[in-house]
């Protein structure tokens, strides 16, 4: 047997292979020890507070410098590829999918344009782009107040701090377009110094105070839902467009309906049936609190922001999304069933609620059109008043169920109860209208228009989509770039990781300065 020494003497390349081979092994060993050390160190410093962030810092990137894992998962909300059976994270034209809603929302912005919601990172962009916000070419123009921005950006809290809460609400959306730039992010839920949870938007804490509860006393687990309840709730614009949650009588559909009835409040008068309507926003928190998961102490974040580990670091997944896209971490943390079974359980509930919801929708569309038919025949207000009150209440109950995100899973029982209530009212309304028609001598089915597609329905209620779209495009091309330019200028003035503005100091500069 020849020795290595001999082999190398004869063929020197063997020596070089051995030399570099050992080098690679030593290198890999080095990498291994490095990862061990890194993981060990990560374990010791799972959370160390090192920020000197401004408490009102509205830029996610500035926070992200200290919390890269949270920031990276947050940024993944830009991904809109996930699609579940009924919704998902992409923008879908709900009117196209379900033209009944054009008739139900006739006379109101939602009959022009109603898209399914995308992730938080799109909040500001989607408000600019929807046809509901119009095309304000001058500051102060347009149909919407600044209140519409409230839930869309941490710039709102910054601005409220600067100009005052009531003053902010009394402005127009278009007046503040250049100020509201950063989508919902870190500052919407977190304190800057220790990252504890907070609810800086005033409406929730004001409502709590009105009802005799102090939000400061909420536990961490409660805050893991209440931060969401700053926005994912039913609300309305009160005097001077001041944002209010109508929870004084309770959080169920009939409780809030009573609240609105007592105040004689209507969002709009339906142009076909002339019923005074209430638009439900998205009573997600209210519906969730009637469900079994809430009852068992589960918070929104437990399923929508499950824990995640990366190497040694445990953190909450900030890609807030449908748990259907992450069954393992969301559901199987507690439930032992297979993924397929859990998905089926969710879809069953959604399908069943959807089934009755559509029945109510059909009844409501018929009720609106039949009421219109009755008015055209010369019905009097006295004859119609009862039917209109029923339509108002039936549609409110439908909307309470339809507008809530995930409600058919959060609380299928409560929603079917609410929809059932609405279905009863809608049919009562139709019977009243039939009686009115009979009193006027019309017997049998009234002659109703064909509103079976989005286009037909929008034409029937007189919406010129082309024109709306054209003015919106003009607004997006001419006004929005100017807003973005002013935003970039403002951000330019601030330090990269800490907001401090010498040109417009305001009264909100980081107290350490």
């Amino acid at each position, binding site marked *: *047997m020849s*020795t*290595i*020494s001999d082999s*190398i*003497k004869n063929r020197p390349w063997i*020596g070089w292979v051995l*030399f570099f081979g*050992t*080098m690679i*092994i*030593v290198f890999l*060993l*080095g990498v*291994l*020890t490095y*990862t*061990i*050390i890194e*993981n*060990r*160190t*990560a*374990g*010791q410093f*799972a959370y160390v507070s090192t920020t000197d962030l401004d408490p009102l810092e509205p830029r996610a990137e500035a926070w992200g410098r200290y919390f890269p894992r949270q920031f990276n998962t947050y940024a993944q909300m830009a991904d809109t590829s996930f699609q579940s059976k009924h919704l998902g994270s992409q923008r879908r034209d709900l009117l196209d999918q379900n033209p009944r809603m054009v008739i139900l929302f006739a006379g109101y912005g939602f009959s022009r344009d109603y898209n399914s919601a995308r992730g938080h990172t799109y909040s500001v962009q989607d408000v600019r782009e929807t046809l509901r916000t119009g095309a304000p070419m001058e500051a102060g123009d347009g149909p919407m107040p600044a209140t519409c921005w409230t839930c869309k950006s941490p710039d709102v809290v910054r601005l409220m701090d600067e100009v005052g809460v009531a003053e902010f609400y009394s402005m127009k959306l278009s007046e503040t377009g250049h100020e509201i730039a950063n989508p919902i992010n870190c500052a919407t839920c977190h304190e800057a110094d220790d990252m504890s949870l907070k609810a800086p938007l005033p409406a929730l804490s004001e409502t709590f105070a009105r009802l005799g509860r102090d939000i400061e006393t909420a536990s961490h687990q409660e805050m893991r839902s209440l931060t969401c309840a700053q926005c994912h709730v039913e609300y309305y614009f009160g005097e001077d467009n001041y944002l209010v949650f109508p929870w004084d009588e309770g959080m169920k559909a009939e409780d809030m309906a009573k609240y609105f009835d007592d105040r004689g409040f209507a969002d709009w008068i339906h142009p076909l049936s002339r019923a005074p309507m209430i638009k439900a926003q998205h009573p997600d928190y209210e519906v969730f609190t009637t469900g079994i998961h809430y009852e068992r102490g589960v918070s929104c974040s*437990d399923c929508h922001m*499950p*824990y*995640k*580990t*990366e*190497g*040694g670091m*445990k953190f909450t997944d900030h890609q807030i999304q449908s748990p259907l896209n992450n069954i*393992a*971490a969301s559901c*199987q*943390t*507690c439930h*032992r069933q297979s993924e397929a079974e859990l998905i089926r359980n969710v879809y069953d509930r959604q399908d069943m609620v959807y089934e009755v919801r559509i029945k109510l929708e059909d009844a409501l569309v018929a009720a609106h059109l039949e009421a219109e038919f009755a008015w055209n025949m010369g019905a009097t207000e006295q004859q119609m008043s009862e039917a209109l009150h029923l339509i108002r209440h039936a549609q409110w109950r439908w909307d309470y169920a339809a507008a809530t995100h995930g409600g058919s899973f959060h609380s299928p029982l409560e929603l079917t109860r609410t929809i059932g209530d609405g279905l009863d009212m809608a049919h009562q309304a139709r019977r009243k209208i039939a009686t009115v028609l009979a009193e006027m001598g019309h017997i049998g089915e009234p002659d109703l228009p064909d509103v079976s597609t989005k286009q037909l329905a929008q034409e029937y209620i007189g919406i010129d989509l082309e024109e709306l779209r054209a003015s919106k495009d003009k607004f997006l091309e001419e006004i929005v770039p100017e807003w973005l330019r002013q935003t970039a200028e403002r951000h330019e003035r601030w330090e990269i990781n800490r907001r401090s503005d010498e040109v417009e100091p305001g009264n909100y500069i980081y107290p350490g300065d």
Partner: protein
Amino acid sequence: MARIKKILQFFIPPPNWRIPVIILTGAFFGIAAYAFIVSNAVSYMSDDPATCVNCHVMGPQYATWFHSSHREHATCNDCHTPQDNLIKQYYFKATDGLRHATIFTLNTTPEPIRMHEAGQRVVQANCQRCHDHTNQFVTSGHVTYDHVQEGKGKMCWDCHRDVPHGTVRSAASAPNATVPVPKSPMPEWLRNLTDR
């Protein structure tokens, strides 16, 4: 003796290669020794539950066990490694340990962490091993992993769902628990020197 000499001679490099080879071999052994120490390699021979939180992703599992009645009677290894003989036990420890180490090093820890098939077989057998006396007249006390696959019974924890780690799995169960993760590998005198 002559044989050993022959083997040694086989590895001895040519004279002009000796210096670089000595240096590289030194580097190899040095870094290997370092890896041995920082990975707490010796601790893996023991049954101390603290060994399992060498990788702190196991923190919640440690914390939930620590607050369970099993803490007084069973360590991690008592349930999660075979107990029929030493060779089987250490073979299982080695293969399972390498699998865990690979997952941990590659940052692919699943959430939640769940037992795979081999682990379930072992734990089921160990439930029955200790609770033998109470289960001797109960047929369900003799169900194995294979029985369950054939639909002829349930695993122990299908009913005793909270034993011993609680009903909530992984990080969500005890997100902020303090567990005995390894201390800094840096000797104190060195830290004192560098902290100055």
